[in-house]
């Protein structure tokens, strides 16, 4: 798994690629927590390049949603993989956080 962060307008985009399972989820958690600790509380997590995500990845995202909101920000998702969408829907994540079908839509949802 790899993460790459860029800052655009009012948000920080974290592009994730590879697989997010119990082995790699702690690295994703670290990447998200570091951004929030640096004051980048509006996060767009781009999962479009992720091939597989288990409940370990979901737990990481839920933890980061809570953390960003408690710091006055939010975490939004960009995802197009049907398997990952199913994981997000099964868990009710769609009801908790906003999920977009493109990175651009997720970024623009934060305004400029």
């Amino acid at each position, binding site marked *: 798994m790899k993460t790459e962060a860029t800052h655009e307008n009012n948000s920080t985009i974290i592009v994730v690629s590879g697989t997010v*399972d*119990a082995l790699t989820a702690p690295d994703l958690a670290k990447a998200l927590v570091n951004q929030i600790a640096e004051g980048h509380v509006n996060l767009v997590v781009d999962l479009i390049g992720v091939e597989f995500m288990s*409940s370990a990845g979901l737990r990481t995202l839920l933890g980061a949603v809570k953390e960003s909101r408690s710091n006055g920000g939010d975490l939004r998702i960009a995802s197009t993989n049907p398997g990952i969408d199913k994981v997000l829907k099964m868990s009710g994540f769609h009801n908790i956080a906003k999920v977009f079908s493109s990175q651009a839509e997720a970024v623009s949802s934060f305004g400029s």
Partner: protein
Amino acid sequence: MTPTYRITRAAYLESLNDFREFIKGHCANAPGINVEILYDVQLAVDEACMNIISHGYRDLDPGSIILDLEFDPDKLTVCLTDFGHSFEPSNAPIADADAPIDELELGGFGLFFIQQSMDKMDYRVTEDGNTMILTKYLRKSVGG
């Protein structure tokens, strides 16, 4: 004769990818298995193996996880065997996906995802180990 394939790995997180790749490799040309079914099976196996690693072999030296894949015309069966602590599926905590975020229990999604991804889950404890039997029907009209 039903084609059956087996992989055995140590109960380490590093083995999760091996199990996923094994399933992907054997499902690639199997009739009736599309990407959605493949993801469901990989997800269920990943969650079940995580439970074995986290709970089954808790306080024990990590033992083996044996994965058997069985292809029938109407179903795909996955058997996962371990030799750690057994559990009672009906007593295991399951996440409540409808709970608000502040109350959402971050554990318990594993078993929930297994049940949501597969059509049938059986669990047997014998002197030969603990075996979780997961079934995915390939034609919804047959058995589910």
